[in-house]
């Protein structure tokens, strides 16, 4: 498989990957000392600026893998490097921005104050915070809502605030755990398009967990297909739909898009997709 980033022929000193996962595994100890192998033998490299989706059925460990990279959990084996640092050091150095399925906004803070939260925690001055929040509010199209509170916003708007917040410190890496999972299909497609635009504008690498095949194909440079029990990578599908800036709604009816969807689907099912009747079982 061709494991190339979009950047052309980088000099050796520049090839430091955004993420490098080497034979990582995770075992959870559950009740009565029983162990669950959540992930095994994970190898994955994400280049700077690359958009990679993790897809797979429930329980395949895709969210766990993201949490390991974010150092919200620690791997039981293997090595995880983020920009050449350990996951822990990368978290302490704030090398990534993160967004979850639930927007996770603080209900007692306005839109603007929510976006400023990471800056405030890391000691950025008031005027600078306000200026940055202003830019981000504009970027996600919430100019008229900056002093609203989260419970006055729709689910899609809340998620946009969460994305703006994840971008607040201009991270070179974004980790997103099903951020559009709870949105309706129409809002979801619009958000995907905005995300793909924002990411290509900021040049950040993205790891994006999803269980939607079209979403993964539309957004990604590569789609990592995972399988459960134990969680592992079964295939990595490269999607060649051009740079994010040129990805628009019309792409969803493009043959290349369908080809990508089919390829991911076949990888998920482990064989060429059976005819419709057989698939229903």
């Amino acid at each position: 498989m061709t494991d190339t980033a979009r950047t052309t022929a980088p000099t050796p000193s520049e090839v430091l990957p955004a993420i490098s996962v080497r034979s990582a595994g995770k075992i959870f100890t559950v009740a009565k000392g029983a162990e669950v192998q959540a992930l095994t033998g994970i190898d994955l490299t994400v280049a700077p600026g690359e958009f990679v989706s993790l897809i797979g059925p429930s329980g395949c460990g895709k969210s766990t893998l993201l949490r390991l990279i974010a150092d919200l959990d620690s791997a039981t084996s293997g090595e995880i490097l983020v920009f050449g640092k350990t996951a822990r050091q990368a978290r302490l150095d704030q090398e990534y921005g993160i967004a979850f399925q639930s927007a996770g906004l603080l209900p007692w803070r306005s839109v603007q104050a929510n976006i400023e939260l990471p800056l405030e925690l890391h000691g950025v001055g008031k005027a600078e915070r306000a200026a940055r929040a202003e830019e981000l509010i504009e970027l996600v199209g919430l100019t008229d809502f900056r002093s609203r509170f989260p419970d006055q916003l729709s689910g899609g708007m809340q998620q946009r605030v969460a994305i703006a917040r994840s971008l607040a410190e201009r991270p070179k890496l974004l980790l997103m755990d099903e951020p559009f999972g709870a949105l309706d299909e129409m809002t979801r497609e619009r958000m995907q398009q905005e995300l793909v635009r924002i990411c290509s504008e900021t040049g950040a690498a993205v790891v994006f967990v999803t269980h939607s095949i079209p979403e993964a194909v539309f957004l990604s440079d590569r789609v990592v297909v995972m399988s459960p029990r134990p969680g592992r990578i079964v295939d990595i599908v490269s999607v060649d739909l051009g740079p994010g800036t040129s990805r628009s709604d019309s792409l969803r009816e493009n043959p290349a898009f369908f080809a990508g969807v089919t390829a991911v689907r076949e990888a998920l099912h482990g064989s060429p997709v059976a005819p419709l009747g057989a698939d229903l079982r």
Partner: protein
Amino acid sequence: MTTTVSAAAMVTDPSAGGASAGRGAAGRSVARSVLPPVVLGVAFLLVWQLAVVAFDIKPYLLPSPTDIVGQIVVVFPLLWSSLLATGLNALIGLVLGGVLAVVLALLASRVTIFDRMIVPIVAAVAVVPIVALAPILNTMFGSTSDTPRRVVVLIVVFAPIFINTLRGLRQVRPVHRDLMRAYAASNWQLTRTVTLPGAVPFIFTGLRIAAPLAVISAIVAEYFGGLQNGLGSRITSAAANSAYPRAWAYVFGAIILGLVFYGVTLLLERLASRRRA
């Protein structure tokens, strides 16, 4: 009298025009919520007065409202100063007890061992018989001091505020915990930006229970000797002198004080929740 005033306000408000229509509506809704209890209260006083006159009830059994009002006017300067003295005791006890409860709840929510140590102690504090404790405290701190009363209030208000606050502090959503970890936030930052603001509604619930309790316990604590400057002392001494209408006048002061405490707490809660919605 009160009823006619608010009725007049209701009539004049809508004519104020479009700009203040919202205020007019607000005024009407206030009138709607204030009017019924006022009417009920006035009716109750009327029945009381009529019953005392009609059945010729003796003042030591039940004085009439007019007698009580007469006494309120006569003793007003003393009533006012007693109300302030008791109110100050209740306020100091409530504030100190509240701060102590919130701080200890914060500690308990952070340090597991401390949590295990303090919960049985709080249960013990919650069942302390104040009536038994007050005379002992009087002996401890001396009977010319206000401290015993403040300590009594502190003990009474501690448990409801502590228990509610601790519950609130344990409500942190996993996503917020993850987020703050991703931001490499310190424990104190987590407390200040997530845990404590999230617990504010719970703290106010505790405070709303504790505020009237503070007044009641401040008054009851005065029944057991010590300084003769508060409402409780005045009630006991008036009753001991068979001056029943006067005793009732001070009881009326006690009711007003309790309502003020409850009302202010409610107002603070409204202000705090307005900021978040």
